[in-house]
């Protein structure tokens, strides 16, 4: 047991160390160029590595608190057990490696394999608590995402057709080769490929109206898994969309694809706002907030220019803030044994550190200064205004305001008020430190964006045709 947890921590630390090393050491391609760390992948690798380290530390504390034997479900009272810890840790590590592979894949075929593998690695994680609700969530997740990924595979085939017309290219799916020969691509087939890949990876990314698996999976999975799903996995699907966008931009149909990004982005934000307002389950609340933020990413990419940089920055901010909130939701769930927000009161009194961070997290996720999300959301707004798209800008602002009200109402009510039951118990340090670290990072980005990160994000935005 000790060995397994140590393995988890050591792997996470090693991954983080190697990811940090990529700032200083030139990386070399592997597998004949199929694995390649480029400007776009770099920030996402950083996010993944940092989040996984935080989640691993939290998971060790979490596994220690989870009693191994059968126990009663707090919602319906039946007894259930957890999956074996070995399965849990094994799947976590496999999940990490598949997500890393997604980010490093330069070949779209390999990227597809990796994205599908992330689904398979994470399904047992969602089904950690073995009862009927998590089973339902897992089945939905598996089926909807598999169909989505299947459509993405069809998109890859379309792309191969689009490329096969060009002399001798032989339908290679390497992003580099596709971009080099972009002028020879068959445009109608490329457009078809783009649509299928957008729908396919969009399902996985949680873009409305294909997000239906997301609230269920996020609310039923253990909180540490929800944090990884929201903070890291959704980003990986976004990377898949960024890759096909690169090809589209090189082929001169950037504006065609950007129209769809704006459409799906706004739709996701609007739909999330509608479901956030009436939401009583606080983990589902956070899940819908993820739909909103991934919509913001798509919107930023669709607007381009300064908004593309905003989207890259927002990906970092959202991952940090959302992972922090899910970890805190895990603490609240452990203390109150309910996911119903109206039954939670006085978090600030009962578990003060979690309560304070929960409030900070509320401001971080809704884009309030001085947190980093404020900067990135503002940049995306500026992108819209600079292009004279006032309707988009106005709708975006109005929806953000609605979401702020919806989330603040629920989350502040949970924090305040008298604490029920026993007085404050000492909180587990392993449950506090990871969210605290994530919170400080979002704050740091808002107050002072470290120049190396700034440069890396600018390089990524430039690779996407933005500034």
């Amino acid at each position: 047991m000790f060995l397994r947890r140590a393995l988890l921590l050591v792997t996470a630390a090693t991954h983080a160390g190697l990811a940090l090393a990529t700032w200083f050491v030139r990386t070399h391609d592997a597998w004949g160029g199929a694995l390649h760390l480029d400007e776009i992948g770099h920030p996402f690798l950083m996010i993944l590595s940092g989040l996984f380290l935080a989640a691993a530390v939290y998971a060790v504390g979490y596994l220690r608190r989870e009693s191994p034997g059968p126990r009663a479900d707090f919602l319906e009272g039946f007894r259930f057990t957890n999956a074996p810890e070995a399965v849990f840790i094994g799947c976590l590590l496999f999940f990490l490696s598949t997500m890393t592979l997604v980010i490093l894949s330069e070949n779209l075929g390999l990227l597809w394999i990796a994205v599908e593998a992330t689904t398979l690695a994470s399904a047992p994680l969602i089904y950690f608590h073995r009862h009927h609700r998590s089973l339902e969530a897992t089945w939905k997740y598996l089926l909807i995402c598999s169909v989505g990924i299947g459509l993405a595979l069809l998109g890859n085939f379309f792309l191969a057709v689009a490329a096969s017309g060009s002399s001798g290219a032989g339908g290679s799916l390497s992003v580099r080769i596709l971009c080099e020969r972009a002028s020879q691509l068959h445009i109608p087939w490329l457009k078809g490929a783009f649509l299928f890949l957008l729908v396919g990876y969009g399902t996985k990314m949680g873009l409305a109206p294909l997000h239906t698996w997301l609230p269920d999976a996020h609310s039923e999975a253990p909180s540490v898994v929800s944090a990884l799903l929201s903070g890291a996995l959704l980003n990986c699907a976004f990377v898949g969309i960024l890759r096909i966008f690169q090809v589209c931009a090189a082929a001169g149909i950037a504006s065609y694809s950007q129209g769809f990004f704006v459409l799906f982005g706004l739709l996701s934000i609007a739909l999330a706002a509608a479901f956030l307002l009436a939401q009583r389950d606080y983990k589902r609340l956070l899940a819908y907030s993820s739909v909103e933020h991934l919509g913001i990413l798509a919107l930023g990419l669709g607007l381009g220019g300064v908004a593309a940089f905003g989207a890259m920055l927002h990906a970092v901010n959202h991952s940090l803030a959302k992972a922090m909130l899910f970890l805190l939701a895990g603490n609240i769930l452990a203390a109150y044994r309910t996911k119903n927000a109206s039954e939670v009161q006085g978090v600030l009194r009962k578990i003060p550190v979690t309560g304070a961070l929960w409030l900070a997290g509320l401001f971080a996720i809704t884009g309030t200064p001085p947190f980093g999300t404020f900067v990135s959301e503002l940049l995306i707004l500026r992108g819209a205004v600079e292009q004279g798209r006032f309707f988009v800008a106005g709708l975006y602002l109005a929806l953000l305001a609605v979401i702020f009200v919806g989330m603040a109402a629920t989350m502040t009510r949970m924090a305040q008020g008298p604490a029920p039951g026993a007085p404050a118990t000492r909180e587990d340090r392993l449950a506090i430190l990871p969210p605290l670290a994530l919170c400080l990072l979002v704050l740091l980005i808002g107050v002072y964006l470290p120049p190396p990160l700034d440069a890396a994000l600018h390089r990524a935005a430039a690779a996407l045709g933005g500034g």
Partner: protein
Amino acid sequence: MHTLLDALVVLLVFTNLRILGLSRINASIRTVAAQGVLLGLVAAIANAGHLSPRIILIAVVGIAVKGVAFPLMLFRALRAVKIRSEVEPFVGYIPSVLAGVAAFLISLAVAARLPLPVRPASDLLVPTALSTLFVGLFLIVSRKKALSQALGFLVFENGIYAFGVGIAYEAPTMIELGILLDVFVAVFVMGIIVFHIAREFDSIDTTRLAALKE
């Protein structure tokens, strides 16, 4: 060669219609298995002009996975869960078959509007692939049992595979094998989940999976 290929492709269409009209899960699994074998043969014959070790490998692995391994896994899951062996559709069998015919006609119309840069070995291949894909999606949404939905997913995957082998697709063999492996594991995981659903609910009826909604 072309007549043989066309005949195989038409057989594929028939397997689609047969799955839509079948009421017993046993028979459905066998039909999907037959479809897998047909697909492997199509992969080999469609590229018979330039038969390379790569094509043979793809065809053989395809037959082994889709024609043998999947059906065995699904039969095991079926035995393990000891359920009544009916498909239990939301949509009746006759309307299902009619939907399948409609899907094929629509696919013909769609394929006519999508000129391939390189002409495929059989003109029927692309419409058949598309209609198989539609039939798979239809099975997923119109069947109650988790196992039937998994079968629908297999048919959907078969459609994509048919499209992939039909066009002159020159991806590295590693990638294609990786894709097959992924699908293999996906079905494997689905089989496990089906087993758990059966144990949890004493049935694999997904209408029982209705605790999570807004």
